[in-house]
């Protein structure tokens, strides 16, 4: 395979990836009669009518707020709980480390449908169905192992010489963790947090199971329920699609290098 073939593959790849996305953006801006005119979509006569109706008629701010609250709260909780745990797993010597690491990996591969029933029963008896904690707690089951896994592989990349030097100078482990490791690993923490945020933003099964109405529905559930009684308001669906996708795409574009490194190193090294 020579370089030219490589370029062809790369270009075809890029086109296949971008085509549906570009098409959706265009469709969301096309008036209803163009969308169902049978002809192709054009860039003439674009309008924002679907976006206006999405926010004015469907009150799409509500699911956006819910998603932001739930995803941010889960991400912060994951970083707070997972940061220390990941450091322990990456750097500290103790019996049972392999077992804990294995358990974290196992839980991250859990089939989520397996715990919908018991979680529903528990949340119901705690009266947490259709509340923010009622979503954040289930979300921890997949976001926390993921965060820990990413952070462990990040911590392992950090050179340990600085920490050892500090400890020789008499600093405690805790002190090292707070004043050396934390500042050094900020980029890794940010990128792990972003990955966790994206997973929470996109989650569907738990959000569908543990909310009961528009008050607490997250963006993916709201998008899926936009279908009307007898027909799908495709224009609004496309607008909602763009709105649901824009934040994660923005995050990915801004942090792509770190995300790729984090995800790839986790997989290649494991």
């Amino acid at each position: 395979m020579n370089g030219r073939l490589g370029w062809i593959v790369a270009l075809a790849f890029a086109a296949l990836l971008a085509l549906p996305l570009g098409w959706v953006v265009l469709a969301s801006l096309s008036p209803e009669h163009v969308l169902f005119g049978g002809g192709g979509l054009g860039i003439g006569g674009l309008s924002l009518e679907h976006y206006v109706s999405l926010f004015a008629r469907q009150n799409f701010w509500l699911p956006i707020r819910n998603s932001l609250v739930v995803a941010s709260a889960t991400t912060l909780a994951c970083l707070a709980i997972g940061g220390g745990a990941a450091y322990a797993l990456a750097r500290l010597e103790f019996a049972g480390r392999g077992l804990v690491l294995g358990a974290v990996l196992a839980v991250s591969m859990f089939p989520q449908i397996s715990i919908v029933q018991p979680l529903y029963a528990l949340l119901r008896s705690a009266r947490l169905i259709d509340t923010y904690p009622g979503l954040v707690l289930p979300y921890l089951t997949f976001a926390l192992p993921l965060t820990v896994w990413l952070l462990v592989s990040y911590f392992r990349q950090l050179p340990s010489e600085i920490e050892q030097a500090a400890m020789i100078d008499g600093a405690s482990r805790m002190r090292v963790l707070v004043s050396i490791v934390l500042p050094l690993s900020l980029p890794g923490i940010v990128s792990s947090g972003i990955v966790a945020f994206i997973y929470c933003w996109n989650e569907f099964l738990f959000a569908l199971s543990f909310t009961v109405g528009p008050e607490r529905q997250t963006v993916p559930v709201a998008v899926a329920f936009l279908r009307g009684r007898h027909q799908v308001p495709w224009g609004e669906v496309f607008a909602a699609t763009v709105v649901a996708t824009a934040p994660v795409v923005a995050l990915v574009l801004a942090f792509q290098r770190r995300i790729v490194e984090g995800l790839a190193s986790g997989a290649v090294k494991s």
Partner: protein
Amino acid sequence: MPHPILAVVLCLAGLLVGCSPGGAALPRVTVSGSASGAEADVLATQLARFRKQNPGIDVVMIPAPETADERHQLYVQWSNARVGEPDILQLDVVWLQEFAAAGWLLPAEIELDDFLPAARAATIYEGRSYAVPWFVDVGMLYYRTDLVERPPATFDELYAQAAAAQERTGIDYGFVFQAARYEGLVTVFLEYLGGFGGVILGPDGSVEVDSERGVRALTSLYAAIHDAKVAPPAVLSWQEEQTRFAFQNGRAVFMRNWPYAYSLLARDPASKVAGRFDIAPMPAAPGGSPTATLGGQQLAISAHAQHPELARALVRFLTAPEQMLERARMAGHLPARRSVYAHPDLEAAIGFEPNRIREIVEHATPRPLTPAYTELSQTLQLGVHRALTRQATPRAALSAAADEMRRISSALALGPEREGPSAARGSAALVWVVLGALGASVAAAVWFRRGRPRPTRSRSRRARAEARLAWLLLLPMLAVVLGLALFPLLRAFHDSLHLYDLRRPWLGRPFVGALNYETVVASARFWGALGRTLGFVVASVSLELALGLLLALGLHRTFRARGAVRTLALVPWAIPTVVAALTFRFAFETQGPGALLASTLGLVERGQNWFSDERLAWIPIVLADVWKTTPFVALLLLAGLQTIPKELYEAAAVDGAGPLQRLRYVTLPGLRSVILVALIFRSLDAFRVFDLVYVLTQGGPGVATEPIALYTFGVLLQYLDFGRGAALSVLVFLVTFGMALVYVRLIGRSEVNA
């Protein structure tokens, strides 16, 4: 019931703000209803009027999904989660028994003498009335007076007239009706069934739908699409409005629909058939009689209502004669009160002579009145839809559905005192099998861990302090993992051995041994779902690995473009699965770009309905999955490629190896562990597939695309059979665990070999 582990976790949750609606100054009554179209307008008008008359009450409308099945699921979840709002539920007539039996409704305690007897009967559960009829619906035949001289008396005559009119005028469709897989399909089938003299349940409540008459009725319905070909295959995904649009645009000779369509067809400025259509009773076959399915909605008060008396006042207001007349005028809904039929303004309101329809209404056929109706109907929907989409013959589909319906009916009668002990004894063996499987998996895990060299530990003070710090740092995470993942799993196992049906709380939760597992294992739908899921895993993961490898090899050679393409490749990975699913749904709608492309290339016929064909429906699902995840697999493999030392290639080139040999002997061995990791992650992920199918096909046609996760979700949150759902959860977990174990062994071996 306090669980110690849960308590820890809840403390964590306490840190997050739990918002609950604050108390309003005025007493608040909430009513759930349709949020779009004329229905929403009439409700908004009437609520505004009520507010004006009762300034001391704050009335709020909570929008509910429009489709009956989705609204049902939401109401079940609301009631089951015991949320206090909405106070007033808008119930379909077929839900009342289920909701009343579960204890989710307050008795209506409103005078019902003036209401039509059939509508009134549909509010009664065990001798008490739990709702007030709001409006009634009956199935009718709409026909074009300019194309047909007189309405048909038999189904055969209907097909002949439709075919003749199509032949003569070239009109697109002969006959359109609702044949998507939803409740509407049962109402149409019930009209055919009655037309052939059959019934769903006999007078004693036994399932009789698979009688000879039933088979003939289904065969006739099938013939409309596939033999007489007067109905387009598109009806297999049509609900009411698609049929109305077809008829209203002058594209159909006959339509089966509800009364609401009449005023729209007659008055909508966009209607092309105003003045050129009429209504008639549905036809019948010799030996049967014309049958109209009784439908309609009722207003009921939730058992968790905060202000039942105020809610009752609002229900009384909304079901008063003036309101019903207005509703008939604005939304075309037939009144449920007899006195309104005598009102001089009704004819002007609905557009036709009321007594013509009152006759039909008074003889309309209700659907079976049983608390298990929803589950019975969903089973029947699947069977009928399977026959209409040619996945089984009418006889085979109907008899399979009837067997399942008999099982549901007998489970309904199951009380712990009647069957509990014997069921437990008979199935003790299965309990041991499941316990054994759990034990074996633990043993296998332990066995896998043995044989690894253990690091020698020095027991210095420093090391002990380090270990203590480590556990301290790990504690919060362990609490979450144990409390929210492992403990629930054990709880699922516990629940799977008990009768635990949220719709029938009065049965309690007795131990039933392996009864739930027996039910699951005996169900063809379970094995079908499991097989389909595994098939999906194999198809999509092998496509993704093959394409991903190709892309990674291509990208490995292009240095300058790599960064840009890499960024782009992350986008499909990051977008919500629901969004990808919707995009591919639209692409493969009959007029969508993907469907048009495929028919232009000659792959399928023009106008092919992708979502009513049991094989074609898989294609958008697999394509969406491949589109979304291949780039990510390619990125993983690309990272792996970059770790293969260049010297290896150079050495191979010196030895005279060609490009294919280098791929075979250098690249693939070097990628082995990365490929395995990608394989594990992707196949465990594909095994969980839920979002894609939920949005793309809902598992249809029939259950042809239903994966195990969607089936389990349905048992849990639609049927609310938590015992059976727990058994499914445990089985799904065991399959996943087995897959993971095999893979982990594979990786371990590859590491040893490498």
